[in-house]
């Protein structure tokens, strides 16, 4: 008995982690998947109902708006975060004075919650007392910046706040990537007469392919899950114009009590994340094994 315990001690110590994740992650996802095939309303029902909830989901105008918003947000969020992140990383890489201070400034938003960020931006973007008033007081009488209350433009306020929060993070990833490149490569290129621009554009950035890939995966992942920022900034409004899938899911589940439908929307999100993550994990694992 004692011998057996001693022999299996490592596995026993690992059991809580495996058990908890098995139950609370895999078990729960399977439960949600099952419920998405039932006609559950307030309480879960367990008779299968087929793909009804998914048909309902994709026929729902609100869900389509949510998916539309997600695509717009993801595209802009990605482009701006990556472009700003790369520019800052390359510029910071030029033996800048006070680099540490600047880096701290670019990255501090990552330490804040999206609720804090959202609260701050909501105040800055509000038309009566925010930026709009600031410019009008400065003499630009006709200056208008009321995206926050404009159905068409409100989604872009979420992009502004989201980019503000996450661009510094992309900067950190690229800076770490650039710093890991051997100095000799850059020196050799410079001796051959390559300009600094050519060095970055033709040599260093192509070498950053894994960093691009990582940033892409992380940013898409953040945007599919974005929930807090929308709650704090627009609550999905004006109307339902800034709804996104994560918000749709919680509203359908906890305010409208449509458990089956919300499970279907959750599974759509799950699949979207899996489509990005599984290739990523696969390539990471291959890289690790290749080492």
């Amino acid at each position: 008995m004692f011998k057996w315990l001693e022999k299996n001690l490592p596995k026993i110590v690992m059991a809580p982690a495996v058990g908890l994740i098995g139950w609370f992650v895999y078990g729960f996802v399977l439960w949600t998947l099952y419920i998405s095939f039932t006609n559950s309303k307030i309480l879960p029902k367990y008779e299968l109902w087929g793909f009804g909830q998914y048909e309902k989901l994709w026929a729902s105008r609100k869900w389509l708006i949510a998916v539309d918003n997600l695509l717009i947000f993801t595209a802009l969020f990605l482009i701006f975060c990556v472009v700003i992140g790369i520019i800052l990383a390359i510029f910071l890489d030029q033996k800048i004075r006070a680099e540490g201070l600047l880096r701290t400034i670019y990255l501090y938003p990552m330490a804040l919650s999206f609720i804090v960020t959202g609260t701050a931006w909501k105040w800055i973007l509000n038309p009566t007392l925010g930026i709009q008033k600031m410019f009008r007081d400065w003499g630009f009488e006709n200056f208008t910046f009321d995206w926050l209350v404009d159905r068409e433009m409100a989604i872009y306020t979420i992009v502004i706040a989201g980019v503000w929060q996450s661009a510094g993070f992309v900067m950190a990833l690229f800076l770490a990537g650039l710093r890991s490149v051997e100095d000799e490569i850059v020196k050799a290129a410079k001796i051959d007469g390559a300009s600094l621009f050519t060095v970055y554009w033709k040599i260093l950035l192509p070498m950053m392919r894994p960093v691009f890939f990582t940033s892409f995966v992380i940013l898409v992942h953040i945007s599919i899950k974005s929930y807090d920022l929308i709650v704090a900034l627009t609550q999905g409004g004006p109307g339902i114009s800034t709804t996104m899938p994560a918000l749709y899911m919680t509203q359908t589940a906890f305010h409208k009590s449509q458990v089956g439908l919300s499970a279907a929307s959750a599974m759509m999100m799950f699949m979207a994340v899996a489509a990005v993550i599984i290739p990523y994990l696969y390539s990471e694992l291959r890289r690790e094994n290749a080492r």
Partner: protein
Amino acid sequence: MQDSLKSSSYKQLEQKSKYTNMFLRWFLYFILILFASYFIFPLYVMVVTSLKTMEEIRQGTLLSWPSGLNLESWAVAWGGRGYGAGDTFLRPYFWNSIKMVLPAVFFSTFIGAMTGYVLTKWRFKGDQWVFLFLLFGCFIPFQAILLPMARTLGVLGISNSVIGLVLVHTVYGIPFTTLFFRNYYISVPTELVKAARIDGAGFFKIFFKILLPISAPIIVVTVIWQFTQIWNDFLFGSTFSFGEAAPIQVALNNMVLSSTSVKEYNVDMASAIIAGIPTLIVYVLAGKYFIRGLTSGAVKG
């Protein structure tokens, strides 16, 4: 002759490139400072707004300097106005968050350390798959587990309580803490462990005598990461708690959204700073470790 020609044109070139370089340098600093002001702007606005009276806010602009060090809105945000019903303020929720964060960080870090230890130093057939199994937990969108989690907490009788949130944050922190410790311990030479085993040291003795003493950096990274994630969480907090058990982010959001009377932006901003200050302090004091956690665990949104 040719040599001198060459060197003089080279000098000219050098001279020219010196001016271009100087111009580029200025341009560089200009762009960097421009972006720095974009990043600082909201924080600046938050701080000055929190120090203004509502009268000043209506008269001035976002950037205008406050007339004095007016801390009243901070007092209101933290401790309320002192009248009964409808007076929401952050103090009790701040403590809720502390009570939630401390045990959740401790348990998830401990479980992650042990699991990472087993996965690297007591390897067995298929341990790679176990790691992958756990790692996948970093990526799932939490919407896919919200419904069953809400029911489970109800069945256990801990929905809408700090204990329930401790459980949730511990469980969903494990994939990250395991990832951190596993990647750290994998670079510790296995020979050390093997030698100790030959000397008759057991499973726990090896952990506490050999690995734990060298784990300080990764413990710091993990604790900071978990602290920031759990303190800043809103999804779990708002789904599984309401009213008195709510953590601070939920309370902040409720405070800002409550539109009972005139909006008091100064109090809103003071509240936002109070909710953000613990993680901000950690970031300023231990930025290096914060960034390390970020770049290795940032798969979470």
